[in-house]
């Protein structure tokens, strides 16, 4: 999925820094040291007249970017975190609220157990240390979408901390295996939504979303460019979908990412001033926003104006493809955290944790390693493992006896092409893993040829049915009897004396012509290998 997205962003019309895109195409990543040879080839490229982009060539390439990501995952529990209101995206405003999530006087929060279960699941999947005794805290600030005037969150004792996430960078961006640290994962509640009116003299508050449980994942500042950041986010999305804790949808807001970007000269251990970037609605905009921000900061550094980089929050503008100042941070906000007195401590038992650990499904990283061990190339591995449904289909096909290579090839070529054309997912197609396995076996066993196999596949994809049925119905069994093939070969040779003469005269390419004719005569059923062997014999014999 993420791999398709990068495809699209590469041809984006609003290229402010086209050279960055080109570099990526070549597999070189922007902010690392780049060999001089490549650098000089870039200077020949014609770019837009903006003076900023001209200066890009002169920017010293010895800066590195330091990127950290805060991800909010909205949990797909049936009800909210502290009350029993249900939640569904897009419902009529203020149709799913109660005194508790509205923060009415006298209302008290009661924790939804599923939130803990999902938090532990995600913490374990991110290889974190769990806090067996954690608590909730109040994070206090005033805003109309926060009914109580505080958010119930976790401050100093998050439920999980010190983990890591392994990702495989897509091959078109250099490939490779990367590990990013996870600082912490904690539970908190979401705020409501504010809807601003056109005129601007009033805003409306929708509290449907207030109290929905969130898990906040804070990464270590381990990412170094937009690609790594986007792949990290894509892997988080994969993970939460695999675990079933969230539908991880950036468009619906069930997965939200804020990034922090800073740059520093390579070799310096002290971090540069970090800038927060918000309003990132897709992985590709995340990647572009980060790269823009990196180049903005590096440019200021190179002009000796690094003091102009202030700790602030910037908004990514999709239209103009740049970040703009949202608000300057006047010092750090004081949230006056203190432990939530209305909720007891969250105490986990080893038994509980072990139970969840054993119930974890095979995670994307494990799958990728397993597929790699089967001998599949990284391209295949990433394609197959990264979509849970495709992986399941693939595994089911293998379970029926098919070999990995064949199954992978079929899925990635013909089946993927079909899905793309018809705009279907692998769950929508009529082909079943059993039939795919049967198809592979039939071809291997010589019952049908590869070419016939493709035809059968198409029918299976579109209409379903079974391989055996189709073979029988259409009489597609391969002809492997040498005697029969010889009969057809002889006949074709006899019917084409002119071509035979030309062949014998030196035009050996005509073998293909003969082969085609025999195929036609056999209605495509002749075994190609055998056909060509016999054909060659006959053509080259002196009789």
């Amino acid at each position, binding site marked *: 999925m993420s791999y398709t997205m990068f495809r699209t962003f590469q041809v984006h019309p609003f290229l402010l820094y086209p050279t960055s895109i080109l570099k990526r195409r070549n597999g070189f990543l922007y902010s690392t040291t780049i060999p001089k040879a490549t650098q000089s080839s870039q200077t020949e490229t014609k770019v837009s007249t903006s003076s900023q982009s001209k200066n890009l060539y002169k920017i010293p390439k010895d800066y590195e970017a330091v990127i950290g990501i805060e991800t909010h995952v909205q949990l797909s529990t049936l009800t909210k975190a502290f009350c029993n209101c249900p939640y569904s995206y897009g419902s009529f405003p203020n149709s799913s609220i109660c005194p508790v999530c509205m923060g*009415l006087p006298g209302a008290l929060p009661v924790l939804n157990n599923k939130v803990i279960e999902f938090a532990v699941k995600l913490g374990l999947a991110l290889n974190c240390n769990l806090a067996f005794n954690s608590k909730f805290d109040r994070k206090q600030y005033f805003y109309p979408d926060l009914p109580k005037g505080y958010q119930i969150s976790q401050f100093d004792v998050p439920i999980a901390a010190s983990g890591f996430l392994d990702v495989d960078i897509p091959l078109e961006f250099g490939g490779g295996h990367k590990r990013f640290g996870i600082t912490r994962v904690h539970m908190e509640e979401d705020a409501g939504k504010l809807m601003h009116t056109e005129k601007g003299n009033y805003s409306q508050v929708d509290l449907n979303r207030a109290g929905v449980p969130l898990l906040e994942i804070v990464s270590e500042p381990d990412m170094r460019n937009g690609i790594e950041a986007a792949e990290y986010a894509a892997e988080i999305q994969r993970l939460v979908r695999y675990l079933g804790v969230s539908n991880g949808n950036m468009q619906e807001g069930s997965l939200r990412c804020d990034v922090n970007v800073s740059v520093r000269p390579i070799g310096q251990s002290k971090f540069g001033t970090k800038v927060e970037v918000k309003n990132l609605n897709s992985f590709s905009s995340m990647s572009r926003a980060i790269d823009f921000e990196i180049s903005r900061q590096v440019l200021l550094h190179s002009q000796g104006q690094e003091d102009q980089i202030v700790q602030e929050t910037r908004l990514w503008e999709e239209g103009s493809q740049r970040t703009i100042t949202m608000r300057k941070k006047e010092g750090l906000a004081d949230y006056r955290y203190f432990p939530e007195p209305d909720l007891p401590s969250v105490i986990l038992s080893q038994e509980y944790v072990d139970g969840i650990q054993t119930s974890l499904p095979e995670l994307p990283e494990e799958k990728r390693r397993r597929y790699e061990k089967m001998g599949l190339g990284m391209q295949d591995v990433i394609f197959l493992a990264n979509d849970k449904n495709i992986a399941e289909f693939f595994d089911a096909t293998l379970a029926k006896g098919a070999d990995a290579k064949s199954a992978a090839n079929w899925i990635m070529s013909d089946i993927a092409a079909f899905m793309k054309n018809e705009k279907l997912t692998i769950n929508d197609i009529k082909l079943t893993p059993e039939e795919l396995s049967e198809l592979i076996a039939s071809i291997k066993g010589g019952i049908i040829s590869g070419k016939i196999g493709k035809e059968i596949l198409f029918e299976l994809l579109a209409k379903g049915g079974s391989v055996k049925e189709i073979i029988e119905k259409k009489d597609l069994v391969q002809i492997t009897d040498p005697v029969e093939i010889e009969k057809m070969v002889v006949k074709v040779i006899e019917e084409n004396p002119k071509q035979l003469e030309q062949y014998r005269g030196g035009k050996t390419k005509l073998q293909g012509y003969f082969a085609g004719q025999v195929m036609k005569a056999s209605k495509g059923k002749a075994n190609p290998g055998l056909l060509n062997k016999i054909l060659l014999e006959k053509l080259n014999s002196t009789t």
Partner: protein
Amino acid sequence: MNQKARDTNLMVQKQKMNNVAEITCSASNLDEEDEVTANPWDVSRVPGGSSGGSAAAVSARQCVVSLGSDTGESVRQPASFCGVVGLKPTYGRVSRFGLMAYASSLDAIGCFGSSVADTGILLHAIAGHDRFDATSSKQEVPNFLSHFDSASSLESKPLKGLRVGLIRETIEDGVDAGVVSAIRAAASHFEELGCSLNEVSLPSFSLGLPVYYVLALSESSSNLSRYDGIRYGNQVHADELDSLYGDSRAKGLGSEVKMRILMGTYALSAGYYDAYYKRAQQVRTIIRNSFKEALNQYDILISPAAPSVAYKIGEKKNDPLAMYAGDIMTVNVNLAGLPALENSF
């Protein structure tokens, strides 16, 4: 709580014409603009607070029993001033769902009655676990009503075997002489009824007042944030969001409440949290442990409910600290989460 009371056929009658102190923030029930609640025994004196109205109603025989809330003293102190029985149950015994929160870790709903038995009956009707209150206790409520013996059935020394501890720090300096002699008289009365009575020292006792005020004000400053005029209440229109909040709350909240919010916010703010809130919680643990220890040696501990009798209306108006100081007798109990009964002799 209303639900439980209804379940036991208790008549729930709304308070008539009695001022409910603004968000239970008053020890004298005097801070409201409209009517003044007076002590039925002497209408020139305060009934106590913050549940002064409930106490006065029972005292004036307007109702048999009534409910109040006790965060630091708000049931026991007015009970003492009005000469009725006031009971604060163990924290968590009665659900807080529906109670406008003041200090979440200290609030408890309490009962007033003219006799201990009546008060007990009310408690029994409202006690028990509530799944809408995560801090409410899951412990079974025993049928303690069955242990209420009528006076006529009692033998001459009915309290024989009961170990009573009189907290020494409550009869020392700062307490009215009249109050000290009253409590001593009560103590000897206890002894006549057969119990063994000794003075017990709780060295951390005096720390209760500052600890209580830091914690209660901090928690309440947070609990009162929801009164912002956005969803209900008066909203003052303004051009900026901050002004809307500021003006609505400035106009809508009384001066005592505003003072407490400011103090609580200060105690929780960056740079002060450790010195105030965190420190207070740590001392609270010490206080709790000292009570626990004392209750290993004694079955009940006794003390005056207030360091003075009901003061005159208007007497402490300009001296909030003096008013706060009056809570010294009762706050430790809330900090420790213990139950306490105020009874007037």
